[in-house]
């Protein structure tokens, strides 16, 4: 009888011990799961916050030789010559840098007043928006030509033509914003009219920036509405997304846009002090940088450009910051 009781007690003890071990194992498992979830959460947040995945390649603020920038407004990376050109508007000059972003030279000309945006074609000719003269200037350094870029065959709009930012495609066609007529004019390198791109939507205020991808798709921004329009290579609207909203990762005060080889759209937001990345459908992907004055932080980004190596050039006040994404599987 007593041995039955003892064996019963033993069984009970063993059972209790087993349950205890299982409970400890469960607690350990849940702790591990919680920590993993927490780590995953912080990884996602860090990524969205721009803390990982992007490094600052260079910051250009000027030096004793080139002097300081004064209101740089536009830049262009020449893939052929591997040179960076900056429209240093306040100083009325173009400044060039080598592939390691070392200062090379500056270009000034009496015919150029306030250069604000520029592109360079494969022949090495520049097309520069001169906001001071409200015209596009053509510069051929080899032939030493600086002149107004003549347009032919452009259908007259209701208003006079005052050009805004310009972009160039791989076929050397130019895409120029016609500010007052709220359209984009596409012209051949000769200035001959190809087509115009416009939208008829009621809440459309006008284009403020334009870029073209490798396939000839056109990406344009309406900064007042906070919208991005995507057109195909025939100028037909493919999609539109975005509106100005005062919340995190929404467009508050968009200033410029660029598109990478994967079709991701990068938008600088001056009031958010960030670059927001969206896919073509307008789905937010992640943010780069954060507001601030330190290296890698943005205080008032106003222009963005992405080169073929997916380096991201941002004009931020009187400095230029160059970022490189380090994400795997996205390049």
């Amino acid at each position, binding site marked *: 009888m007593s041995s039955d009781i003892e064996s019963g007690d033993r069984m009970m003890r063993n059972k209790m011990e087993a349950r205890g071990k299982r409970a400890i194992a469960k607690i350990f498992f849940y702790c591990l799961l919680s920590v993993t979830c927490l780590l995953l959460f912080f990884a996602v947040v860090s990524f969205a916050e721009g803390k990982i995945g992007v490094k600052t390649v260079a910051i250009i603020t000027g030096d004793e030789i080139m002097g300081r920038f004064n209101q740089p407004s536009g830049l262009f990376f020449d893939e052929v010559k591997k040179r960076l050109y900056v429209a240093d508007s*306040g100083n009325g000059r173009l400044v060039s840098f080598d592939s390691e972003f070392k200062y090379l030279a500056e270009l000034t000309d009496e015919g150029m007043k306030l250069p604000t945006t520029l592109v360079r074609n494969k022949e090495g000719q520049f097309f520069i928006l001169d906001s001071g003269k409200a015209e596009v200037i053509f510069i051929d350094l080899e032939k030493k030509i600086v002149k107004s870029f003549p347009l032919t065959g452009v259908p007259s709009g*209701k208003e006079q033509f005052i050009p805004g930012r310009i972009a160039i495609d791989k076929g050397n066609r130019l895409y120029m914003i016609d500010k*007052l007529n709220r359209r984009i004019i596409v012209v051949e390198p000769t200035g001959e009219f190809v087509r115009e791109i416009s939208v008829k939507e009621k809440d459309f*205020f*006008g284009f403020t920036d334009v870029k073209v991808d490798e396939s000839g798709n056109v990406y344009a921004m309406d900064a007042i509405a906070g919208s991005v329009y995507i057109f195909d290579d025939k100028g037909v609207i493919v999609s539109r997304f975005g509106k100005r909203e*005062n919340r995190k990762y929404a467009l508050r005060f968009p200033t410029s846009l660029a598109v990478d080889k994967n079709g991701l759209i990068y938008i600088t937001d001056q009031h958010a002090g960030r670059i927001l990345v969206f896919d073509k459908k307008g789905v937010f992907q992640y943010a780069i940088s954060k507001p601030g004055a330190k290296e890698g932080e943005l205080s008032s980004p106003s222009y963005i450009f992405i080169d073929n190596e997916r380096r991201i050039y941002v004009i931020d*006040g009187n400095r230029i910051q160059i970022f490189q994404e380090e994400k795997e599987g996205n390049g």
Partner: protein
Amino acid sequence: MKEMKPSRHLVGIVIGLAVFFGLEHETGNAKTVKDTKSLCLECHSKIAELTNRVTVHRPVRDGQCTVCHNPHASKRASLLADDDSNLCYNCHDRGGKGFTGTVVHKPVGEGKCLSCHDAHSSDRKGLLKKAEGDGCFSCHPKEGIIAKKNIHPEVKKGRCTVCHNPHSSDLNGLLIKDKKSLCAGCHPGAGEIFTKAHLGYKVSGTDCFGCHSPHSSDRKGLLKTTLHKPFGENQCTSCHSAGSTAVVKSGISLCTECHQTSLAGFNKINSHLIVGSNDNLCITCHNPHASDEKHLFKDKEDRVCYGCHSDTKEYTAGSNHKHSKLGICSGCHTAHGSNSQFFLTKGTDTCAMENCHSTQGKFTHPIGEKIIDPRSKMPMNCSTCHNPMGSPEDALLRFEKDTELCIQCHQI
């Protein structure tokens, strides 16, 4: 030994909580020796007199003093049972009729109902503390509204709610109707006198505020103070086809034909040459007929700017510390175009303009081209440390001054 299932623990906890809160509830409703009305009025006899007024707040009438007051203790004045911002809304629905507009009267938004209403009783409808006009004028000074020679009759009578909703509205100025239909309610726009006054132009259905001041004016017919020259000289055909509101030229050229130099003002690095929702970008900001504002602005300056810069409006509204001249945008910014960042009138010297902050940088932290911010490697200016558009910190500082600001650059 029988092991309890977790579900039984849960049931036990629920029962325990139910008993606890049940008891709590019971004690909260501990029976009083008398009904609250007579109990409170024993001491607060003056309140009894208030119930003799024309309009009595229902809880006061019913003797439910504890709806608003805690009879024992409160951290709030007058033993109020809740914060000012919540108290009234415990009974009066925030989402109720008249409260759901996007433009909210400031005291309503802040829950300061007692600015206008008496919590106990009043001789006026709606428990108003003062007669309608007097109540409004106590915050909106008469000098700014009815100081001029000719006064709109309803304004003179103080009947502000004829045009304004005192709680909220979807329209600027808390208007009860849009500007195009508001005036037509009393001024149907028919008849010989009306047509003659408008030189035969069919103006019914247009925005009367474009030319007329709704409150008062020194001009006949409540015309606004500053008149566009052709309008003042009855030269309507300078811009309009005879007898029609249609304009003779489309777009900006209608304006630039006379204002020839204006367009050049946009030819800057930063330009406001953005068409906006109007065919003619000039009327995005300016009124082509008359205005009570400088530069023929179509509205108060800050409202004109915030029309597009809505995020700035929200940011500044939410900032604890605001620049004293925040509503006067043109005090620091150039409207058409500028070669300075943020359209600043004098670039980084803007803060020192017109003796606003002329001593800055002379005896305070040095600033200027030679003083380099080690974080950005850029020259320091006022906005390195201050955010003129608003800040949660004192003196519009970008960081908390005792613990964060200096160590941004000066490492300990």
